[in-house]
């Protein structure tokens, strides 16, 4: 006999749905294409770095973190957009929801599957990026040691320490975590859009606009307020846009990381919480749109 009560929140059911979603997504060709492109861009940053010797680590970090951010966001949108339409088209959604599975569990399971995929992708990209950074660091340190032969030991040690600090610093990790939170937020928003969209192409187009608005809205808002003043209507409208579309630039700390500026813990925590709140709110909206949907 069944061990968990139907209709009650069940982690077993969510885990089953997440597992099946994750397994399906890792078999998608789009996943490997995106991962391959990301690897190519991250890998090619080594050659770009060699062109400009003085700031090679900055360029490597800039290009790699930028590629990780773009490809993870793209993967979140593309992977999530087709989940519900495909289940509807194949009628598998009927067999799932005809079991004692609440619709919110179905949505949570699907989103969790995508989040697992995103975690796997970002881990793979981070491993490549950090591996390349380490190899480049070792090569440059060896070259520095060779060219510093005969210099005082303290001076050489200082040069190596400076080199290592500019290659790898602790700020990289919170930066990568925030890229993940941004992708999670986009996945939840995509899931919400897909609950009422007529096709996955429509969902992807809407999400591309949402992505662009999310990245440009802060700049556009500042420009508008500077040029046109701050009337109550403008404030209300801009406030509404800011509420509906998250300011994705908040998750972009690449510039700070590249410049070597320390990311305050409070800023990291605030941004992470913001990502979690937006993800939860979009998931809730998805449930509101989906719980009464005629299947």
């Amino acid at each position, binding site marked *: 006999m069944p061990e968990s009560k139907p209709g009650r929140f069940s982690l077993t059911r969510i885990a089953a749905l997440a597992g099946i979603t994750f397994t399906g997504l890792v078999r998608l060709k789009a996943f490997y294409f995106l991962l391959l492109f990301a690897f190519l861009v991250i890998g090619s940053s080594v050659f770009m770095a060699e062109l400009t010797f003085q700031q090679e680590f900055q360029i490597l970090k800039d290009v790699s973190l930028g590629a990780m951010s773009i490809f993870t966001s793209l993967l979140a949108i593309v992977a999530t957009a087709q989940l519900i339409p495909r289940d509807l088209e*194949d009628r598998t959604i009927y067999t799932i929801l005809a079991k004692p599975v609440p619709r919110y569990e179905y949505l949570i399971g699907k989103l969790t599957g995508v989040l697992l995929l995103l975690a796997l992708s970002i881990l793979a990209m981070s491993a490549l990026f950090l591996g390349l950074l380490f190899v480049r660091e070792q090569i440059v340190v060896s070259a520095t040691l060779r060219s510093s032969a005969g210099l005082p030991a303290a001076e050489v040690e200082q040069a190596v320490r400076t080199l290592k600090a500019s290659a790898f610093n602790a700020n990289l990790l919170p930066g990568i975590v925030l890229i993940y939170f941004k992708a999670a937020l986009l996945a939840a928003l995509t899931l919400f859009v897909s609950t009422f969209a007529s096709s996955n192409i429509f969902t992807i187009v809407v999400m591309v606009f949402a992505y662009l608005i999310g990245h440009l809205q802060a700049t556009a808002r500042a420009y508008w307020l500077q040029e046109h003043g701050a009337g109550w209507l403008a404030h209300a409208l801009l406030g509404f846009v800011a509420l509906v579309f998250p300011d994705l630039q908040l998750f972009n700390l690449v510039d700070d990381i590249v410049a070597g500026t320390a990311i305050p813990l409070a800023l990291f925590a605030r941004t992470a919480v913001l990502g979690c709140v937006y993800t939860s709110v979009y998931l809730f909206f998805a449930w509101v749109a989906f719980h009464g949907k005629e299947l």
Partner: protein
Amino acid sequence: MSDVAVAVNDLTKVFPIPFRRSKVVAVRGLNLEVAPGQVYGLLGPNGSGKSTTLKIILGLVSPSAGTTRIFGRDSREVGSREGVGFLPENPYFYKYLTGEETLFFYGKLCGLRGAALRARTRELLTLVRLEAAKDRPLGGYSKGMLQRIGLAQALVQEPKLVVLDEPTAGVDPEGSREIRDLILDLKRRGITVLLSSHLLAHVQEICDRVGILAHGVLVREGRVDELLAIENQTELVLENVNPEVLAQIRRLLENTATRLVEERQPQTTLESLFLAATNGPPSP
């Protein structure tokens, strides 16, 4: 516990057409009841409201008016589906999963775990005769095999009610016969079956009761034998009869008000002939 497996009361479903003022009435004032252990067939042409009715019973679509209940519980409650298995028309499951993994997945959705889940999966694979194909991905399954694994997933939590939407659609006669035998097996076990089908011969063979829908309205409903009986006629089937006896019967009828309507040799069905010719299972 209700003494009615499925109760549909004054059910109406209206679908608004987007961007137009018109609406489509898929089901209109439907009333029907399915008793526990009964095999009930819902018949009707395409667009008559069969699938919509089944989806409302399963809570996949909301009624515009009226109620549907499963063993006394409102269909809109998730818990009402605790004892329900469903096989939709032409289902495509996750192609990358094997038959065994598919049953594991659906079993977990129903709260089964560990040894109980493994035992139930083995039992079902044997029941639908897919033990040999249990490790093959569903992408390589034939249409009949997909229907059988679909039926197995519908039975995974030992449901009291099984809902089948066109269970033999697109399946060859042999596969169709296998599905029919499985439904008869469910009936023997006391499981209530509610099905929709276009194969009237099968429905006639396996259903205790049928309802015929046309334009969303239930136009006929009742026991199959009652509905099909021609009340003023009686059929005699004689074996090893000689011409003399037949002549006597005809003479006997001449002086009465009884009219001999037809005299013919009983025939087998085309399906039985096909199965016999292709070495299928013998007709029961």
